[in-house]
Structure formats: structure tokens, C-alpha cells
């Protein structure tokens, strides 16, 4: 039975990256079904994520529609979300939507490097596949993305930052 509630919760789209489901994005941490009551645990991507309430409503709505009357959505802060949790399927969907998926995040602990020039990353253009790309801005429409430009096809695109 747990897998059923999980399957429903897992298909709910993220409000800000609607090409991804909550499971693709890696923010769905746990779905527990005990005695007819479903408890869904989600984690925010960033501290200021304005979508947590929307996500909670969408989860409650979809699970109620599937016949689960008692639904509780709770937050977990630890461990903090990492872009490494975006699934392989999620990465494919991002690229297909024109958004470059993140590089691996650095180690969770240890010295935090200071970067005095734009970060050097290997980012492939989601439009033409060229590796000749440059960062044009470290932040984009949301905190989780940077702006890039492809020097081969000249198209701008967004890149989900490693975090």
C-alpha cells in the first residue's frame, strides 16, 4: 500500500520546474501510510522557496482524489537538499525542456572555496549539444539557476546550479 501513495505523490509536478515531478527533483523524502493516514515528507530546495505551500496543497489534493482521506504533509530540513538528488530521469527532462542539468555538487563538508571568477563548469548547450558555453549571470529567474549562453548556436539558456 505504501507504494501506491508514493506513486501518487511522486507524480505531482513541481510548481517552479513543472517539467519535473517532486520525485524527479528529489524533494519527496518519504511517504508513510499507517492506518489509512498518509504522511508525506518534503524538503525545500532553498530556504526561501515560495512554493512549499503550493506543493503541500497539490499533494493533499491529489492524494485525496485518489481516496486517501487523511493526508499530512510535513517538512524535513536535514539533510539539506542537494542538486545531486535530481534523478537521471529528471536530468533528461530538464535538458529536453532547454534547461541544462546540474554538475555534481562538491563535498558536503570541508573548506568552502572562495571563487573570484565565474565558476568554470563543463555545461553542454541543451539546444545544440555544444560544450562551448559561458556563464552570463550567476543567478536567474530563480535562485536555483544560472544564466548561460552557447557560443556555438548563440542561444541563451538556464543551468540548474550545483548545490
Amino acid at each position, binding site marked *: 500500500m505504501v507504494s501506491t501513495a508514493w506513486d501518487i505523490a511522486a507524480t505531482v509536478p513541481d510548481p517552479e520546474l513543472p517539467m519535473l515531478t517532486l520525485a524527479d527533483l528529489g524533494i519527496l523524502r518519504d511517504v508513510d501510510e499507517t492506518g489509512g493516514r498518509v504522511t508525506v515528507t518534503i524538503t525545500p530546495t532553498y530556504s526561501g522557496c515560495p512554493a512549499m505551500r503550493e506543493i503541500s*496543497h497539490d499533494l493533499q489534493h491529489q492524494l485525496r482524489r485518489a481516496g486517501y482521506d487523511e493526508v499530512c504533509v510535513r517538512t524535513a*530540513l536535514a539533510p*539539506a537538499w542537494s542538486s545531486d538528488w535530481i534523478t537521471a530521469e529528471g536530468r533528461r527532462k530538464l535538458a529536453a525542456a532547454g534547461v541544462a542539468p546540474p554538475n555534481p555538487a562538491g563535498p558536503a563538508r570541508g573548506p*568552502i572555496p572562495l571563487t573570484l571568477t565565474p565558476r568554470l563548469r563543463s555545461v553542454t548547450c541543451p539546444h545544440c549539444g555544444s560544450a562551448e558555453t559561458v556563464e552570463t*549571470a*550567476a543567478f536567474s529567474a530563480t535562485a536555483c539557476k544560472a544564466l548561460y549562453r552557447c557560443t556555438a548556436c548563440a542561444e541563451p539558456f538556464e543551468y540548474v546550479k550545483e548545490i
Partner: protein
Amino acid sequence: MGASMSDEGGTPYDGLTDEHGEDHRWAFGTGFTDPLEGIDTSVPHGMEAPELAAYCLALGDDALIYSHRLQQWITRMPELEEETALGNIALDLLGQARMLLARAGSIDGRTEDELAFFRAEKEFRNVRLVERRDEDFAELVGRLLVFSTWRLALFDHLRDAADPVLAAIAAKGVKELTYHRDYAAQWVVRLGDGTELSHERMQGALDRLWPLVDELFTPRAGDLADPARLRGEVDVVLDTVFATAGLDRPDGAPLAFVGGRAGRDGVHTEALGYVLAELQSVARAHPDATW
């Protein structure tokens, strides 16, 4: 939300009325729930609850007031890319403020809204560095460099705090502050190592900020990170940035405390009153409103 309304055959305007109850809101991002929903907020054994609440409140106030000052730059930035950067940095800090105020409130029985909107100036515990309005873009990136370098070093220590809630908030914040610090440091280097004019403006901004730096490292009862050690870590980073930028570390005298008291004791500069007047006016005019 849009999807759930269309499923029921309604229009986007249905959410403007109250008929749909709690589940529908008039716009994306409105309607707030406790940012610590479902998290165990009991205070671990061996920790002084009032001391932990005061500590979280101070760190939350730093982020709340500074986020507001950053938001005041929106529509005034030189380029759209800088505006989105600053908007996102301010949003990260607002998120940190909400969780820290909620953590403080979970101990002393107040909500984040009560703490943000219904406290008087002397009840705020932020450092004075975050209250001032930036005089120019150089001061904006200089203050952001000092603030994010200090907060990143502090949060790095707080990841090991005995309180698991504070430790989790800090661990999350570290990832965000790393990007904030890089953004500010890159601009300080660009301006310091730029033209004669940009160099002069950047050095002038640091000179104006510097009297407010000492307060960040003033030892206090209940400190969860050693201020002397923190200062050493912060100095290494700032010196690296200044050396790369060709800037001098200012040596101006610290802004005096008043009878031994400063921001953490509720003694602020005149600038805070203006921030609070703007920040709190809507909530105070409509104390029972929800949004």
C-alpha cells in the same frame, strides 16, 4: 493550484473569494504555513531554552533586516542580471529569517509574524551593519561581502550546533551563502581592480562600512561559535579579496557601543526605525489580515 481549480471547472478568479476555504489562495506564493511544519522543535537536554531562542532570534533579525535593505535595491540595479541576483539573495535570507524566527518562536510561544511585525525597534537584536542604507553600488557589494563572509563562517560552525533545528537551518544556509559570498567578492574585485573611479568608490565604501565590522565579533554569553576564531576565518577571506582587488583593509575605529550596548542589546542606529516603518506598516494597519 491552477491545475486543481481547472479540475473543478472554476475560473482563476474563484480564488479571490473566501468560498473555497483554506485550500485556495489568490496568487502563487501567498498563504504561509509554519516553515518548521512537522519538525520536532523540542529543545535538547543540556541546552538553555531562553538562550537558544535569543540566539536564533538575533540571527533571524540579521537576515530579516538585511533582506529588506537588499529588497529596496529592486528596480534600482544597473542591470537586469544584477537585479535577479539580488532578488534571489534577498529571498534566500528571508527564508533563513523565517526559519530562525520560527525556531525562536517555537521556544517562547510567538509566531514568526508576531516577531517580524509586532516588535518595537529596541526589541530587535540585529547587528548594526545590516540597518544602514547603501549609499552606492560599491557599498552594496562591500556590505554583502562582509555580511555573507561572516555569516557563512558562522553557519559553517553552527552545522554542529547541539540543537538539530538550528544545525539544519545552518547547513542549508551554508550552500546559499557560498553563492552570495562569491557574487559579492567578484564585484568587489571588479570594482577595486577596475577604473580609477571605481577603485576610489570601492575603497570609500569599505572605509564607511568598517566601523560596523567589530561588532560582529564581540563575545556574548551564549555564543555557539568562538568569535576570535570566527574573526580569523573571516579575515583570511576578506584579505584574499582585498589583495586581489588592490584594496586596502580599512583601519577606521569601530563605531562606539552605547553604555556597552549595541545591536544585539537592542541599541540601534537611527536607520533601523525607517526599515521597520516600511516593513511593519501593512501588518500593523491590518493586524488580522491573512495573506
